[in-house]
Structure formats: structure tokens, C-alpha cells
């Protein structure tokens, strides 16, 4: 048989390189990204300055970086539970949307409230909404052995249509000139900002707390051990007496709750009401964040900041370079592509004849 390219599993693949490969992927992204700018007839160095440095050169920019990084980090931390367990929850965007509907719905229901308990209740319902939406693929997988990638992804679109229904239907603001959006939440339903005049909000603290708890769970607890074992070998997990079906439920519920939380933070934080486009694909981008952070809680915090920067850079590039903001997604795609590539080359040797 004639092969042009042959791949072979490396017997001894490097752990160091596993943790360094995100850096390699970022470096390659910048390198190939500069060609994109060259093709667009732009000076790559100037463009990178506008893309990656100017967005965070003032306090407003840094605040915005955290505004974008917070939902990414919270969702990605939740997703890491699923991914560690070899469960591929692709539907965080839908779970985020459901969180916003549940939590935001509470805000609209008690629209004239002045109670300090309104916000905690909204946060609780945000998490419940996301968890509820994530339970559906978990049930389908454990009862009918359906593929969770498909079901969780498809449920995303269902959630988006439900949100659509509410904002053009029952929850439409009567004073909103017919626009598809709800009334604003009452002041007690808004997420407190950290610094007056900037948008960065207390969701940052939630992200850090979730990060720490996740770190402890992964490294110190029986539950974290179960996830690690099951991710490495399902047979060994049975030998250890772990119940895989329970783990599927737990990990889906945790990741759904995190996504729901992020969704609620978006609507009760920067946005302040419900409307159609509450998320610029945070739920999908968080998948990249989770893998770029190597499913490590601290790594996820770092990668969420980096990916948040591509959102900001894309906005600035649109403004100052007159190029479409979709360039930001191109960079996210490149990072993921190179990350998967470096991981592959770390795991396998490639021979070309």
C-alpha cells in the first residue's frame, strides 16, 4: 500500500508541550493573521496595535475586556466539567439564553420591586434556567443513548426562538415603539458595577469564585477524581464503581447552570433588559476558551481574557481600519485551528513519503 502521509501515535507525548501549545497556537495565529492584514493592504504591525493593544490602553477598554471575559470564563469553566468527562455539550449558547429568559423573566415579573432580594432571585433562576435546558440532552443521552452534541446544539436554536417569542410577544415593552425588546429591569434587578461610570460588574467575582471552586473540585475531591478517571477510561471508571449516568447529569447540570448564570449576568448587567441578540456567540466561543485554557480553571481565566480581546479588537478594527468585525471570529477560528493542530502533532508523529 502506498501512503503519502502516515501518522503514528507517539509513545511518550510531552506534558510540557501540552501546556505550551496554546502559546504556540497564539503565535501561529498572529503570524498567519498578519497575512490577512497584508492581503487587505494594511500594515500588519499597525493593525495588530489597533487590534490587540489600543482596545486595552485605557480604563474603559480594560473594563470592557472584563465585561467580555466574564461570561466567557464562567461558561468555559462550566463546560470544562463536561469536556473532562468526555461529554460534548455544544449547547452553552442555548443554556445561556434559557438562563436569561428564566432570570430575566423574574426581573420582569417583579417589575415594580424595590427589594434587595430580587437580584439574588434572578441569579438563582438564571442558573436554574440554564441547568434545566442542559438536563434535556442529559436525559436523552442516558435514556435513549442519543448523541449529546446534536441534541445540545439543536436545543440552542429552540432556546433562541423561545426568547424571540417572548420579546416580540408577551414580554414586549408597550412603550417600546414596537421594537422586539422587553421593559428595562427595575434598578434592584441590575447587577452592581464595580467602578462608577464603567460597565465592569460583580460577575467578575463570580468568575473568580467559580474558578477557585473548580480548581478545588478537580484536585481535591472525589467528584473531580471521578471526572478525571471517566475521561481517561470508561472501563476503569466502572471498575472503580463510578456511575457514569450520574456523572453525565452532574456535569450537564453544572455547565448548564454556569451558562445560565452568564446569560443572566449579561441581561441584568450591561444590557438591562431582554431582547433578541443578548449574546455575541459567547456560548460557542467559550468552547474555544475551555480548550485553549487546557480545561484547567486558571488557564481558562487567561484564555477568556485573550479571546475577549479578539472581540474588542474586532470592534476597533471595524472602526479604525474599516474592516468587518468578523475578523475577530477569524482570529478565534485560527486559534482553535492551530491549537487542535499542535495537539495533534504532539500526540502523533507524521511521516511524509
Amino acid at each position, binding site marked *: 500500500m502506498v501512503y503519502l502521509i502516515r501518522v503514528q501515535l507517539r509513545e511518550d507525548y510531552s506534558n510540557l508541550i501540552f501546556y505550551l501549545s496554546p502559546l504556540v497556537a497564539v503565535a501561529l495565529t498572529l503570524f498567519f493573521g498578519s497575512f490577512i492584514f497584508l492581503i487587505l493592504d494594511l500594515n500588519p504591525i499597525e493593525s495588530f496595535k489597533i487590534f490587540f493593544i489600543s482596545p486595552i490602553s485605557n480604563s474603559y477598554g480594560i473594563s470592557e475586556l472584563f465585561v467580555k471575559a466574564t461570561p466567557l470564563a464562567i461558561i468555559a469553566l462550566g463546560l470544562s466539567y463536561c469536556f473532562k468527562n468526555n461529554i460534548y455539550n455544544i449547547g452553552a449558547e442555548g443554556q445561556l439564553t434559557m438562563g436569561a429568559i428564566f432570570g430575566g423573566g423574574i426581573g420582569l415579573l417583579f417589575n415594580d420591586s424595590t427589594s434587595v432580594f430580587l437580584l439574588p432571585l434572578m441569579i438563582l433562576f438564571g442558573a436554574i434556567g440554564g441547568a434545566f435546558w442542559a438536563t434535556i440532552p442529559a436525559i436523552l443521552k442516558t435514556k435513549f443513548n442519543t448523541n449529546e452534541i446534536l441534541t445540545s446544539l439543536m436545543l440552542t436554536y429552540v432556546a433562541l426562538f423561545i426568547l424571540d417569542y417572548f420579546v416580540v410577544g408577551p414580554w414586549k415593552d408597550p412603550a417600546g415603539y414596537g421594537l422586539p425588546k422587553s421593559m428595562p429591569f427595575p434598578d434592584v434587578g441590575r447587577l452592581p458595577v464595580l467602578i462608577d461610570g464603567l460597565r465592569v460588574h460583580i460577575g467578575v467575582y463570580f468568575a473568580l469564585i467559580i474558578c477557585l471552586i473548580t480548581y478545588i473540585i478537580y484536585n481535591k475531591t*472525589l467528584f473531580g477524581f471521578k471526572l478525571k478517571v471517566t475521561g481517561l477510561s470508561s472501563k*476503569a471508571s466502572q471498575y472503580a464503581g463510578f456511575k457514569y449516568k450520574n456523572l453525565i447529569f452532574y456535569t450537564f447540570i453544572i455547565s448548564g447552570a454556569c451558562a445560565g448564570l452568564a446569560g443572566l449576568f449579561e441581561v441584568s448587567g450591561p444590557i438591562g433588559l431582554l431582547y433578541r441578540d443578548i449574546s455575541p456567540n459567547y456560548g460557542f466561543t467559550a468552547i474555544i476558551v475551555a480548550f485553549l485554557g487546557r480545561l484547567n480553571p486558571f488557564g481558562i481565566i487567561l484564555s477568556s481574557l485573550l479571546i475577549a480581546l479578539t472581540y474588542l479588537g474586532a470592534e476597533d478594527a471595524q472602526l479604525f481600519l474599516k474592516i468587518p468585525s468578523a475578523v475577530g471570529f477569524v482570529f478565534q477560528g485560527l486559534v482553535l485551528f492551530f491549537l487542535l493542530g499542535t495537539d495533534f502533532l504532539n500526540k502523533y508523529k507524521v511521516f511524509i513519503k
Partner: protein
Amino acid sequence: MQSIVEFKNIFKSYPGVIANDDVSFDIKKQSIHAILGENGAGKSTLVKILYGHVKPDSGEILINSDLAIINSPSTAKNLGINMVFQHFSLFESLTVAENLILGMNENISLTKLKDKSKTICDKYGFNLNLNSPISSLSVGQRQSVEIVRSLLNNPKILIMDEPTSVLTPDEIRKLFKILKNLVNDGLTVIFISHKLEEIINLSDYVTIMRNGKVVSTISTQNEDSETLGYKMLGYKVSKAKQVSDINFSQEIFNIKNLSTHSKDPFTINLNKIDLNLKKGQIFGIAGVAGNGQKELMEILLNENDYEFSGDIIFKDLKINALSTFQRKSLSISYVTEERLGHSAIPEMSLSENIFLSMNHKSEFKKGDFINFEKINSYASDVIKNFNVDTPSYNVKAGKLSGGNLQKFIIGREIMSNPELLILSQPTWGIDAGSEAFIKKTIVELSQKGVSIIIISHDLDELLEVCHQISVLYEGSLSNPLNVEDINITKLGKYMGGLFD
């Protein structure tokens, strides 16, 4: 006789270890040449060099007196060199025939290949259904697939790595007959082994390796297992001997009328199995691979709620419906056939692998948290008490040799003070030193009152350590035979299904 392979001053080193140190010897054409040595003696590296899988640092290989540069397995195959590995490389979900066609260098249609394979199977007596998926085959049958796959390439030289470790005496006899016929047809067989008896029975010449060096290359004619064993190890191995005249009284474990009724054509249904185990007794379950061992072990472990009728009773308690976790909590311990990925996880440290099997023990937990201090000290004790050769408990399990890892796993289970220990293939594919150690440990354990069930294809092992042996044949378990009354003829009949 003319030499077909000549190794000349082969050197190969890996970081921290010299695998082959100035290895030189010849292999005669149309002979069966054994390479004998402990795990880590360098025999696998040497044949991998011959097969083009590993590049030597220096040295030459002559094939038919011509210098051969073998830098890939496909070059080796073009030179007529084929190899059957100890760890099979078969695609589980594909059928036997599909796996066979994947190994072919030439273009051939599936129908043609099936005819050709069928001829080989019939000629040499391999019992294979070409349309069965690999996942439904026993270890022994998988090996047959590997051998047939090599034979399809019409090799001149066939390398076999530990070929007999999964076979019954009968199958070994058949394999030997096949190999001798093949040699008469012009083939040269190189086989790696650490089983002394079979080397003497099968091979014409043997090269003994120790620590990467060749100790000597000799004809097997004037050797017996003791002299050969001494040359291999450099010291003498004492055999574990079971004390036979004990009166066992206290019943500890019973299987009553156990049957399964699966409709899956690829599993063996168990048929009215009765088993009666007393305190301190070692009970062996012999039989050819694929006669229900896998299914019986699954029921004993209960990892997947396998459905069955009948009862399993442990110390007067019906444990039919109890999960693996609950059974372990009752002080039943298990060592499964597969080490990597079942009873141990290669990517995890030895300490973590302790907790893998001991997570039911409250002493290793503080609420929902893991008590790593206790686990580490338990791991140190296992390493010390069971002669596990490793620098630390932080080493990943996959870095240990088969023998060392098995000592670690068995040690892990024994240190938890089980009342019943169930072992499947406890010494499969491990070195002679570890094998002897494990057998000795098992015998000592029974003398302390622990009851033990061993499921094994290795009759010698069972005869050495067990008090009683039953044979599993097509899902039925024979009446137990006391080891002191056993003769090989009777056992051979039982293994062929001739019992009531």
C-alpha cells in the same frame, strides 16, 4: 545450515537504559530460534530492530548474507520478515476478514482474500469465523487472526512475541505443530518467550539475553528448564508450592445454579454454574479462552448489571444485585485481565491508581475530599511490600513494566485485607521474576485465610497454586478436581468438554 539472519554488534540505547548492548548472533535458515530473557532484557527491542520498527544506534543486520537496511516495517515485509506482536493491533469493530485485508501489501478483493484465508485456516486448523467482529473474539482467537494475517504475506521469517501466553496446552500443541509444519515448508521462526518448557519443546536454538547483552546462543538439545532458567535470570527461582492436605470447613462464597440467557450471538451463555469456595481455599477456573470466562468475570464484578438467573452468595448474604462498589465494600477484591485501562489507568500516578480501586474506603476520604496523605502512605507500603520497582508513587502507572504494574495492582488489593480475592489472568504477559513473586504471594495469602478464585488459561500456574480446579467449557463449569488427584489426560478431556 546456512544463516538467514545475522546480527552484528547491534547497539540501541534509550535515555537512561541500554536496550541492546553489542548484540551479535546468527539465526539458521529453517529453524525455530527462541530469544529468551526477562522483561527488559532487550529482546523486544532487538526484534523490533529486525522488523524495522526501531532504528539501532549502530550495528548491522545481514539477511541471507547481504547487508540489509531495514528502516521501516514495509521494508521488512518486502524482505519477507513478518511479525506477530504481543499486543494485538486489530480494529475492534471490523470483522476478521476486514482486519486481514488491512494488513495486505497487494491489492486483493475481499472474496479472494477470504478464500485464501480459509485455505490457511483449514490447512493449519485455525478456528476462525471470518465474518465475526474482532470485539466478539477471545484473546486466543485474536492471536489466531494476527498469525493468519502474517501468513497471508507468505513470509520467509516470522517473528512472534510471547505467542503462547494466552493459549491452552492443547492450543499450544497445535500452534507448535503449525510452526513446525511451516518450518518444514521453508519458514524460519523467531520467537520471544520467557517460558522455559516451551522453548525446550519447540525451538532448535535459543539466544539468552540479560540486561541488553547476549549471554549465549545454544542448541536446546542438552538443556532443561532448570539450566535454562538459571542462565536467563542469573539466579535460581523457587516454585510456589501449595500445601494440599488442609481440611477446609467454613464456607465463604457460593455460586448456585448461575445461568445467563443472552441473545447476543457473540457472547457465551453460562449454563447452571455451581461453585463452592471455602475459607482459605484457592479455586482455579481453567479452560480455553472464550468459553465464558469473560462473562463469568463480568457477573462476579457486576460493572454493567449483567443479567443472570441463579444466586451468588457471599458469607450467607445474597449479593446478586449488589454493585461493584457495594461488593468491594464487603471486602471482595478484583484483579481484572486487562491491566491498562481497566484495573489501572496508565496516565494516572500510582497513588491515584490506589484510590481508583479503594475509593469505597472511608479512611481515604474526608467527606467529599480525598485524603492524599493516607493514599500516598498506602501506595508506599504497596511499593515496599510487593517489590514494585519504581522511584516513587508519583510515577504514572503506564511507565511501569507489565510485571511491576501487576505486582502493584495485586498488592493494592491484598493490602486492603480482602476476604475474597478474584483474579483473572494474574500472570499473563509478565516476566518470570514477577510471576514467581505473585504466585508465592497468592499461596501465602490463602494460608492467612483469604479465599481466592483464579480464572486463568495458564494450566501450569493453576496446578502450582490452586487447591481445586474446575474447567469452564462453553459456559458450563465442570465438577471440581482436587489438584493432587489431577492428571493431565483427565484435565485435557475436561478442557475439551468431556465432563458430566
